[in-house]
């Protein structure tokens, strides 16, 4: 049964990918036994499934995802959070405060105010309701320091790497704490701004070149080179 593309070919929405015994995977759809791409991206097969790794997509919430969001509004019994997707999320006050509370605006804004950043988990989501967040687990909650960057959500798995190899390597080389929100928002917290900038540069490089091979080596090399320069500069500053 025919396939109409080469591995990792760049395809546009509506391009015919396969016909017959194949199954429509990510960013594809099937009509009358034909599989078409629905987003611009790189097409590949995984067994009988035809997938397109989208080069441009937005985040659709999934229960259990860790996300980083910004508080948009303080409401009566919770906060509205932007998670950079089509839907804004809700964080209930009852999830944050361990005791029953009286709905007074002032009290809530003291805990979390508009503009604050949080790391949270998607607790529930369905077609009829906006996603609900929870911060009731270790590692979740308000963010107090670090730098934030936005990455296309489909690239996050590449930043993580196989069994977390890529992200562990970056953390190690830069000494930074990195939290990857599956909504594409990344938090980098390092000892110095230079360390943070380095981690950010590495992540940006992965985002740009995510579909290529040998990326792990190139990123490692970049980090080692830059770190070498930083250490050299520190030495120079010491000797002045």
């Amino acid at each position, binding site marked *: 049964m025919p396939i109409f593309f080469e591995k990792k070919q760049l395809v*546009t929405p509506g391009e015919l990918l396969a016909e017959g015994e194949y199954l429509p995977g990510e960013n594809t*759809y099937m009509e009358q036994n034909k599989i078409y791409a629905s987003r611009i991206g790189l097409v590949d097969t995984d067994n009988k499934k035809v997938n397109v790794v989208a*080069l441009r997509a937005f985040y659709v919430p999934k229960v259990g995802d860790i996300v980083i969001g910004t508080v948009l509004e303080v409401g009566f019994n919770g906060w509205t959070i932007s998670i950079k997707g089509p839907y804004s999320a809700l964080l209930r006050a009852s999830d944050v405060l361990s005791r029953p509370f009286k709905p007074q605006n002032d009290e809530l804004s003291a805990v979390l105010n508009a503009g604050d950043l949080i790391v949270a988990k998607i607790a529930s989501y369905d077609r009829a309701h906006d996603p609900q967040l929870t911060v009731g687990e270790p590692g979740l909650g308000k963010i107090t320091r670090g730098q934030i960057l936005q990455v296309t959500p489909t690239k996050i798995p590449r930043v993580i790497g196989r069994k977390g190899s890529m992200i562990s390597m970056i953390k190690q080389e830069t000494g930074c704490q990195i939290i990857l929100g599956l909504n594409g928002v990344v938090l980098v917290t390092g000892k110095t701004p230079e360390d943070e900038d380095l981690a950010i540069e590495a992540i940006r490089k992965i985002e740009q070149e995510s579909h*290529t091979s040998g990326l792990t080596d190139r990123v490692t090399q970049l980090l080692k080179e830059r770190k070498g320069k930083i250490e050299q500069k520190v030495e120079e500053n010491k000797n002045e």
Partner: protein
Amino acid sequence: MNEKPEKLIDKKGIRSDGRKADELRPLKLQVGVLSNADGSAYIEHGKNKILAAAFGPREMHPKHLAMPDRMVLRCRYHMAPFSVQERKSPAPSRREVELSKVIKEALEPALFTELYPRTGVDVFVEVLQADGGTRCASITAAALAIADAGVPMRDLVVACAAGKIDDTVVLDLYDAEDKLGAADVPVAYMPSLNAITLLQMDGILTMQEFEKATNMALDGCRRIYEVQKEALKTKYMVVKEAGEE
């Protein structure tokens, strides 16, 4: 600056702008030209210069316009006051209102509206310079803007017009041909699905001429579709090549 040609098409079949009956005007498309929009595209088609931007899917404002089970597409076609021969008032004209509606109806069949309920996608088209066939060029650019925003689509929507001037059915009328000609038939099309999403006609044509013009326009659509796909790939190709060094 008002050029009114004597004859729209001469005995040798050459039109007043030098083209043959089935020749398209020069076309240039660029994707991702505006940094604030989720997706954007710019088209130059003949003397037409049009900018399209897409925002979303995002929450609908006002909220009561959101639909519980689907995504809503809104479209605004607007012409800049300096885009035409005689300055046009910035207020939306009845023509702009109608075109906004037909352009939206041309793009909507490409979207999977059931995928993102309660959200909206807003498409804005600004005609910076007009020379006939702006609704078609707008649709071609708007579809690219939507794809550039990462909104899933069944296919890109492409559009082209054909018409009749001096008893000859021709492709891609420019403004003088549209105004002085006998008929204009704009068509929007999703080539992979063989689906016509916009079809209008004003003028007078026999059934045979109407069929001929529609087919000619579809052929023009298929040719522009190749340019459209290339423009989209070009923006993302740069990204691909950067990694292969």
